[in-house]
C-alpha cells in the first residue's frame, strides 16, 4: 500500500534522532552557504561531501539534501539587506527586496522571503510527490525544440522586466545574451569572443557576472552615497518580530501568486538545464505581468519578493524528479548532488521507481521538513539580520568587495574572474547610475546558451519543421500570449513605470 510507504518514510525520518539531528545541523549550514555571496549550494555540497563518507546512504542523502534545500532561504538575506545576491537565483529578490530595506521595511521583506521560501519548499515537495505517477511521460516529452521555445518564453520576459525604458531593457538583455555566447561554440568548436583566454572557453561564469552587475555597483553606489544601506530614519524603520510575521502573512495574503509561482518554479525545476535562475526570473516576470499595478515593482513591492523566493525553493523539489528517476540532473546543484548520491551507493535512474521508493519518499519528507525548520531558524535570527542594514556603509563595503572577489575566484578557481568581475562592476555601476535596468542582463545570460544549444539540436533533428510539433505549438502560443499581454498593457496603461534602482 503506497500510503503505508509514504508515512513509514515520514516516521523513518522524524523518528530517528540521528536523521533529525542531521537535518537540524544541515539547515543552518545551508543558510550560511546561501547567505555568503559566491558560495551557494553547489559549493556547499562539494564541501560537505567529505563529511558524508562513512554515513549510510539515507543519512548522507538526507544531510546533503536538507542543506541544499534551504540555500536560497539564506541567499535572500544579503539580497534583501545589502542588495547583494547570495546565489545567482537570489538576484531576482534584490529588485524589490532591497528597495523595501531602503524604505525601512527590511523586517517585512525578510518575513515575506522567509514565508515564501518555506511555502515554496513545501509545495515543491508536494509537487514532487504528486508528479511521481505521471513523471515519465511528461519529462520524456520534452525535446530540444521545447527547450528552445521555453528559453524564448523566458527571454520574452525581458520586455516585461524593462521597466520605463523598453529599449534600454532590451539592450541590456541582449548584452546578457551576447555574453552567453562567449565560449567555445558547441557545434564548430571555434572559440567565440574569448580573446584567447582559456578561462572563457567554458563561458562567462554566472556567479561572477551577477556579482559584477549587482554587488560591485551597489558597493560603489553605497560609497558614493555614504550612510547606511537603509535610507529611512533608523527609528522609523526599526522593526520587531511582528513585522517579520506580518511579512510571512503577506505570502498568504497573496496566496494565488504564491501557489502559481511555487508551481511554475517546481515545473521549471523538472526541466533539466533551465535551473533556478530561470525559475526565479520567470516567476518575477510573471508577478509583474499579472499585477494590477506593475508600476510598484522595482520600488519595493512585496510580491516581487514572494514570487522569486517561492520559485527558488519549490524548484528544488521539481529538479529532484529527473535527477532521481532519469539520472538527468534538473539543475547544476543537482548535478553535484547526483555525484554525491552515486558516491553514497544510490543509483539514480528508472530502477529507483522499483526498488528505491522508500528512499524517494524519505527525501521528499526531508525536503519539506528542512524548509519548515528553516522558517523557524530564520525567524529566531531575522531581527538581528535586519539591524545589520543600519551598519554604516563604509564598514560593509570592504567586506562585501572582498567576498565578491572571493566568490568570483572560488566559482571556478580562476583569478581571471576577478578581472571580469571588476570590468562588469564598473559597467554595472554606470548602467545603474543612468537607469539601464539590469535584471534583463541575467535572464539573457542564463537563457542564451540554452536557447542556442536547443535550437541547433532541434534544427538538426527536425529541421525548421520543429515549430509544428504539438508541444512546440503550445509554447509558441504562450510566447505570443506573453508578448501580447505586454503590448496590450502598454496600449491600455502606457509603458509600465518600473524603475530599477538596484
Amino acid at each position, binding site marked *: 500500500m503506497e500510503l503505508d510507504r509514504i508515512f513509514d518514510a515520514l516516521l523513518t525520518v522524524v523518528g530517528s534522532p540521528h536523521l533529525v539531528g542531521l537535518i537540524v545541523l544541515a539547515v543552518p549550514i545551508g543558510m550560511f552557504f546561501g547567505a555568503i555571496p559566491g558560495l551557494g549550494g553547489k559549493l556547499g555540497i562539494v564541501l560537505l561531501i567529505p563529511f558524508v563518507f562513512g554515513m549510510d546512504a539515507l543519512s548522507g542523502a538526507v544531510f546533503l539534501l536538507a542543506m541544499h534545500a534551504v540555500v536560497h532561504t539564506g541567499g535572500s538575506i544579503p539580497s534583501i539587506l545589502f542588495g547583494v545576491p547570495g546565489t545567482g537565483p537570489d538576484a531576482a529578490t534584490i529588485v524589490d527586496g532591497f528597495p523595501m530595506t531602503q524604505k525601512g521595511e527590511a523586517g517585512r521583506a525578510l518575513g515575506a522571503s522567509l514565508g515564501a521560501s518555506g511555502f515554496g519548499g513545501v509545495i515543491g515537495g508536494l509537487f514532487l510527490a504528486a508528479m511521481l505517477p505521471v513523471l515519465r511521460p511528461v519529462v520524456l516529452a520534452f525535446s530540444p525544440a521545447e527547450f528552445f521555445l521555453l528559453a524564448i518564453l523566458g527571454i520574452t520576459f525581458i520586455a516585461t522586466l524593462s521597466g520605463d525604458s523598453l529599449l534600454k531593457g532590451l539592450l541590456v538583455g541582449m548584452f546578457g545574451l551576447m555574453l552567453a555566447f562567449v565560449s567555445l561554440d558547441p557545434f564548430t568548436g571555434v572559440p567565440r569572443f574569448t580573446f584567447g583566454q582559456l578561462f572563457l572557453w567554458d563561458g562567462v561564469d554566472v556567479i561572477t557576472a551577477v556579482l559584477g552587475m549587482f554587488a560591485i555597483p551597489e558597493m560603489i553606489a553605497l560609497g558614493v552615497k555614504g550612510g547606511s544601506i537603509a535610507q529611512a530614519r533608523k527609528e522609523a524603520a526599526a522593526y520587531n518580530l511582528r513585522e517579520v510575521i506580518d511579512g510571512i502573512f503577506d505570502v498568504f495574503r497573496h496566496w494565488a501568486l504564491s501557489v502559481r509561482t511555487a508551481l511554475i518554479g517546481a515545473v521549471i525545476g523538472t526541466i533539466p538545464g533551465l535551473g533556478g535562475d530561470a525559475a526565479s526570473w520567470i516567476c518575477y516576470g510573471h508577478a509583474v505581468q499579472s499585477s494590477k499595478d506593475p508600476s510598484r515593482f522595482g520600488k519595493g513591492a512585496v510580491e516581487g519578493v514572494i514570487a522569486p523566493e517561492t520559485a527558488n525553493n519549490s524548484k528544488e523539489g521539481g529538479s529532484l524528479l529527473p535527477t532521481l528517476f532519469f539520472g538527468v540532473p534538473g539543475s547544476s546543484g543537482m548535478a553535484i548532488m547526483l555525484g554525491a548520491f552515486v558516491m553514497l551507493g544510490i543509483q539514480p535512474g528508472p530502477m529507483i521507481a522499483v526498488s528505491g521508493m522508500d528512499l524517494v519518499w524519505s527525501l521528499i519528507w526531508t525536503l519539506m521538513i528542512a524548509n519548515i525548520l528553516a522558517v523557524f531558524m530564520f525567524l529566531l535570527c531575522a531581527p538581528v539580520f535586519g539591524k545589520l542594514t543600519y551598519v554604516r556603509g563604509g564598514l560593509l563595503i570592504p567586506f562585501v568587495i572582498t567576498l565578491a572577489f572571493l566568490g568570483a*575566484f572560488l566559482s571556478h578557481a580562476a583569478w581571471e574572474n576577478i578581472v571580469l568581475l571588476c570590468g562588469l562592476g564598473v559597467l554595472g555601476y554606470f548602467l545603474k547610475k543612468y537607469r539601464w535596468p539590469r535584471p534583463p542582463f541575467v535572464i539573457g545570460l542564463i537563457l542564451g546558451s540554452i536557447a542556442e544549444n536547443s535550437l541547433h539540436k532541434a534544427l538538426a533533428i527536425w529541421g525548421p519543421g520543429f515549430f509544428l510539433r504539438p508541444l512546440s505549438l503550445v509554447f509558441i502560443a504562450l510566447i505570443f500570449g506573453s508578448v501580447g499581454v505586454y503590448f496590450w498593457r502598454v496600449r491600455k496603461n502606457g509603458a509600465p513605470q518600473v524603475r530599477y534602482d538596484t
Partner: protein
Amino acid sequence: MILNGRILTTMVMLAIFAGMSAMALAYPEKARFLPLLISVPATLMCLAQLVFDVRSALQDGPTEDSAEAALERPREVKMFLWLAVFFIGVMCFGFLIAAPVLVFAFLRFGEKEPWMTAMLGGLGAWIILYGVFTRVLELFLFEGFITPLLTG
C-alpha cells in the same frame, strides 16, 4: 558640452555590440548565426538610443542632474580608486595578505574609522579568510603573483 555620462554609457554599449558584431563576422556560419542575430539589431538599437540621448542633452542643456553629478564625481573617483587598490592588492598579494590589510586601510584611511575599529575589521577579515575558508573549509585561496615569489 553635450558629451555627458549618459551618452558615454550608451557609446560604450554601442562599442561593445559593434565590436562583437565585427568579431562574429569572422566565425564559421553556424557559430556566428545567433551572435549576429542578436548583435546587429542591438547595434542599431544602441544607435537609436544614442540619438535619443543626444537629442535629450541638446534640448535640456545643463540640468540639476549634471550639477548633482559634479558633486558626486570626487566620491565616485575615490570609490573607483579603492576598487582598483583592492584589485591590484589581491592580484599581487592574494586574499590572505591583501584583504585584511585593505579592509584595515579602507576603514582607517578611506572611512576615517577609529584605529581600533579598523584593526578589528582587518583582523575579522583575516579570521574569516584563514579560519573559515582556509582551515575549516580547506579552500585554496588565490595567493597573488608576488607572494609566491617572496615565500619561495
